[in-house]
């Protein structure tokens, strides 16, 4: 019965209740959207790093990572790639040769890391083909083709079909030069990477650096189940004890830091939103209690004890919040879903974003735990907001409450 009274009381001042419910709806709606947007941004950042840099898992020889020595090759890497590629847990696998060197055109010279890739295997890992803005990918069958980033091409003042000369150390530490023809210009979302990497065919680099066929410095893997990355890496590491197997978290520890920072932000933002809501709710409930003084006095006179009066006010507040919160969350969810499909185009600010390696299109998304946290926060907020008005209510003395006309 008290629950029923509490519920019906809400609708006595319809407008006032609707105003506070609307503010809860709007508050939670924007909170969900904001969190979803942050998620989208982080996801963008992380997936762009995974795609362009770390993959999910990378395999090297233990020494390679320390000094990038040319001779730190994984023997028979192609067999390992083929073997891993067949695993049901692994989405894609590819081997790479990484050569540090100097790339020069007739106009300029730049330090470079040339990645020797097998385009067919590389494509599902880093989606290189989608990043080509002019020309074609390497691997047409002709020898010594190279793909440069747009930035690199500009710095070297070269165009498609231009020739560039790569100077590097071969496996016996002899300085070697080779001429490459620019067949494609690409652009990723990361300015930093674009200033560093160029792509050539793995077979060309193996031959020019006098490396054994099928060898590679690096094997990059994408897994099927992102959450199983750690266990899978441990498994591979067990089977290949001579190799160093690392997950994206180990390769780029800041990603993990970024993730926990985001969780903290989410809690801080939720708290700020709830603080903004709490005063509106307190105000509304205080009005509701004060204008019902006589009635509350009567209820206490006829035997409704303080605990029940207190509980009634708390319940009334909770119900108001529980009407608003689900609607706000639903609207937030629908908005997020819609914008997730269409994407939010931030190309206006793309210059700044590229510095951070972020893509222009943000796809906001929310996870179940976001709603869980918001729900709990709403309940806590409502209960906190109801305490002061509820105390006001039980401090009333029935005689005084009834006397005032």
């Amino acid at each position: 019965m008290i629950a029923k009274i509490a519920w019906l009381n809400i609708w006595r001042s319809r407008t006032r209740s609707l105003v506070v419910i609307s503010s809860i709806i709007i508050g939670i709606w924007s909170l969900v959207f904001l969190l979803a947007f942050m998620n989208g941004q982080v996801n963008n950042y992380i997936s762009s790093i995974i795609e362009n840099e770390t993959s999910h898992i990378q395999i090297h020889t233990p020494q390679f990572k320390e000094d990038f020595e040319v001779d730190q090759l994984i023997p028979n890497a192609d067999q390992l790639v083929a073997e891993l590629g067949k695993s049901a847990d692994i989405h894609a696998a590819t081997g790479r040769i990484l050569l540090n060197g100097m790339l020069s055109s007739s106009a300029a010279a730049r330090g470079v890391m040339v990645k020797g890739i097998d385009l067919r295997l590389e494509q599902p890992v880093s989606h290189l083909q989608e990043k080509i803005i002019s020309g074609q990918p390497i691997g047409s069958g002709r020898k010594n083709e190279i793909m440069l980033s747009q930035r690199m091409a500009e710095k070297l003042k070269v165009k498609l079909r231009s020739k560039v000369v790569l100077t590097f150390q071969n496996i016996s530490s002899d300085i070697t030069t080779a001429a490459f023809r620019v067949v494609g210009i690409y652009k990723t979302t990361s300015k930093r990477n674009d200033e560093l990497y160029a792509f050539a065919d793995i077979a060309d680099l193996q031959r020019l650096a006098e490396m054994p066929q099928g060898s590679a410095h690096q094997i990059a893997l994408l897994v099927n189940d992102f959450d199983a990355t750690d266990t899978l890496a441990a498994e591979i590491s067990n089977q290949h004890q001579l190799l160093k197997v690392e997950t994206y978290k180990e390769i780029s520890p800041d990603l993990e830091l970024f993730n926990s920072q985001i969780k903290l932000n989410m809690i801080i933002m939720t708290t700020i939103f709830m603080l903004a809501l709490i005063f509106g709710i307190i105000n509304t409930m205080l009005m509701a209690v004060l204008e019902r003084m006589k009635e509350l006095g009567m209820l206490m006179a006829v035997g409704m004890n303080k605990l029940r009066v207190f509980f009634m006010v708390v319940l009334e507040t909770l119900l108001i919040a529980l009407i608003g919160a689900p609607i706000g969350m639903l609207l937030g969810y629908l908005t997020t879903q819609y914008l997730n499909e269409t994407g939010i185009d931030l190309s206006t600010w793309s210059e700044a974003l590229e510095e951070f390696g972020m893509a222009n299109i943000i796809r906001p998304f929310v996870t179940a735990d976001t709603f869980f946290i918001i729900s709990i926060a709403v309940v806590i907020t409502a209960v906190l907001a109801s305490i002061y008005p509820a105390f006001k209510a039980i401090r009333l003395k029935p005689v005084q409450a009834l006397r005032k006309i």
Partner: protein
Amino acid sequence: MERKKVIIVKDVYKTYHETKVPVKALRGVSIDIHQGEFTAIVGPSGSGKTTLLNLIGGLDRPTKGSIVVGDTDIATLSDNQLIDFRKEHIGFVFQSYNLIPVLTAKENVEFVMLLQKQPKAKRDARTAELMAAVGLADRMDNRPSELSGGQQQRVAVARALAPKPTFILADEPTANLDSKSTADLLDMMAKLNADEHITFVFSTHDQRVIDRARRIITIEDGKVLKDEWVQ
């Protein structure tokens, strides 16, 4: 036949200190009320009628003196015990704001029984019986706002009677009613008093109400001036 005393007010003083000058609202009042009385407390405005009823009803505490209701000296009860005591033993009818506006007449009558955790079947039977007794069997599902002032007061009487209290206190129950509603309400209260020996103590200014009382206690300046039985 000597009837059981249900209320014993003994040398009660009440001074309000809430204002700058303390107000002596009651100055030595002693009254006994017996089971089955139909008693009016009358007196000019400000004489202390409401104060006295509030003290008897355990809504406030006397400055001095004792009030025994049934067998309980209510001064010995804590605030929370007092709330429970009121719930079990005293039925209130106020001048206004008697009913919970969001509930129907039936739910209002049921309310205190719900607080007492009485089973549904018992509540339903008692509610139906009381609504019939106050002549509103057909208005069970109306909200207070859909009832006239007189009908609302009758629901309030039914509500007050629901937990079978020792007596009913009514502070100017007819002050907001027209003469027809006043007469109806009094008829009903007198009938309950005659048929079921329910004790009524009410305060009033209204001569028509005073005329119906069987005992008239007149207070003035916080003291009992006259205490007369009407045949």
